[in-house]
């Protein structure tokens, strides 16, 4: 579904991504784990066109994404839940969700999808008329995920959805990811919380300073000594 080949990305003189390749197959949950500054966000930004690569191939369902305008990528069914939520703080919760459906032409279906999202996130429904800026971090994360769902995605890339959340909320967020996956959405998940990420993933890649150093089945990686030491705090 998603194929990244030999990707190189630089910010000026800083080489952030040094030739990585990865793929995500239809129906999978794949995670990309790595420490702060490893380049995870850069990979996702390059996939959804927010950053231009120096070199490499990014294909989504055989479409060359570099030839697609960044704001058209969501229309292909590829949604991005960005690091730090990026909800529209000055808009209400409902308006934020409607923003997710902004590109959609099937206006008469949007109302119904809004109800579906509110059923998955009762906490958001209670706060539907509140400004998103007044929500807690966990609620904002749910809103960012709900907004992505409103775009009817086939593939969602998520950037550290558990960042800054209490253990209870982390669990809730991962449950939501699983539910989205059960509903047929393919997921590329970026996380520092390797344990949680690996536990729900099919496969995973480990990113260290711009290079992929390990990859494989998530269940194997969970048992790998090097992973345990570096990322699982064991």
């Amino acid at each position, binding site marked *: 579904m998603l194929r990244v080949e030999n990707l190189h990305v630089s910010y000026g003189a800083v080489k952030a991504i040094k030739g990585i390749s990865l793929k995500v197959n239809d129906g999978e949950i794949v995670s990309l784990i790595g420490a702060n500054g490893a380049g995870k966000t850069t990979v996702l930004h390059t996939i*959804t*066109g*927010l950053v231009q690569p120096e070199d490499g191939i990014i294909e989504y369902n055989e479409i060359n994404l570099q030839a697609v*305008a*960044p*704001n*058209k990528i*969501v*229309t292909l069914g590829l*949604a*991005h839940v*960005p690091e730090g939520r*990026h*909800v*529209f*703080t*000055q*808009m209400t919760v409902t*308006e934020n969700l*409607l*923003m*997710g459906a*902004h*590109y959609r032409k099937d206006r008469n279906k949007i109302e119904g999808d809004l109800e579906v999202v509110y059923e998955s996130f009762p906490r958001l429904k209670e706060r539907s008329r509140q400004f998103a800026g007044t929500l807690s971090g966990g609620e904002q994360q749910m809103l960012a995920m709900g*907004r992505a769902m409103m*775009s009817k995605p086939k593939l969602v890339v998520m950037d550290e959805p558990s960042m800054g959340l209490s253990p209870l909320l982390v669990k809730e967020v991962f449950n939501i990811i699983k539910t989205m996956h059960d509903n047929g959405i393919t997921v590329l998940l970026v996380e520092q919380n390797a344990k949680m990420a690996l536990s729900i993933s099919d496969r995973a890649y480990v990113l260290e300073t711009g290079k992929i150093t390990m990859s494989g089945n998530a269940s194997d990686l969970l048992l790998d000594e090097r992973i345990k030491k570096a990322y699982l705090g064991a």
Partner: protein
Amino acid sequence: MSGSLQTLSDFLQCLIVGLRLGSVYALVALGYTMVYGIIRLINFAHGDFIMVGGYTLFFTIPAMLAVNDKLPIWLAVIVAIAVCALVGVTVELVAYRPVRKKGTNMTALITAIAMSLFLENLAQAIPAIGPNYKIMRRMFSNKAVLNFLNISLDWTTLLTILIGASVMIGLQLFVKKTKLGRAMRAVSEDKQASVLVGINVNRTIIITFAIGSGLAAVAALMYFAQYSTIMTTSGTMLGLKAFVAAVLGGIGIIPGAMLGGLVIGLVESFTTGYISSSLADAFVFLILIIVLIIKPAGILGKNVGEKV
């Protein structure tokens, strides 16, 4: 007429004049605030858009009447709106966007000042405009709507207030209720998230420029309906005061520009009526300074660090 009635009518007269002035300031302030909201730039050329709108009216009115002298004169504002929107969009495309891509905030600011001077000089260079002032045709009737308790309310004043109010209500509904209005709010808050939900950010910025600049044309109609002389620097002082209004209300905040405009208009009119017309501008700036000391982000502004 008794003394207290006279006091009341003086007050009402100041109120009416203040609302008239305030409506003009508010529409101009909206242009500053909408552009600031979406690209964080003080568009110093915005005051000159009023001048562009004014001259467009000046030349369109006789041309229009030559075609059909039954047409109402204010109809020329449609042409002025189109011209101002076009000038605003051109300034954005030719000057601001390229500088935004390459330069810093300071270069953008200097570009805006340059665009202001450029428009004024360009206007002067046009032979039909030149350096001397011109007299506008009367746009609305100056007949009194009512004459009551020594209060005079003429059609120009009444229509200015009514047009101002309807434009402001319309704009507020547009921004709050329509998809395009939502996109404008989204882009002004978070460009990255806007791209991710599929908004064409550059197109939204252009539309914002078109609307903000078009409002300057409506303001020009209202302003020159009252003050009939026009010259190439006509927009400068009005632009400056409207900018003060935008800052007073909270720059980047649409209701703030409306409120700020009305406050400035009322302060100016009451100072003129009760103290002295020569102090009116001084009071306007005094109010600005006091408000900014108490609330640096403006009346409706949120006192948080500047958002990027």
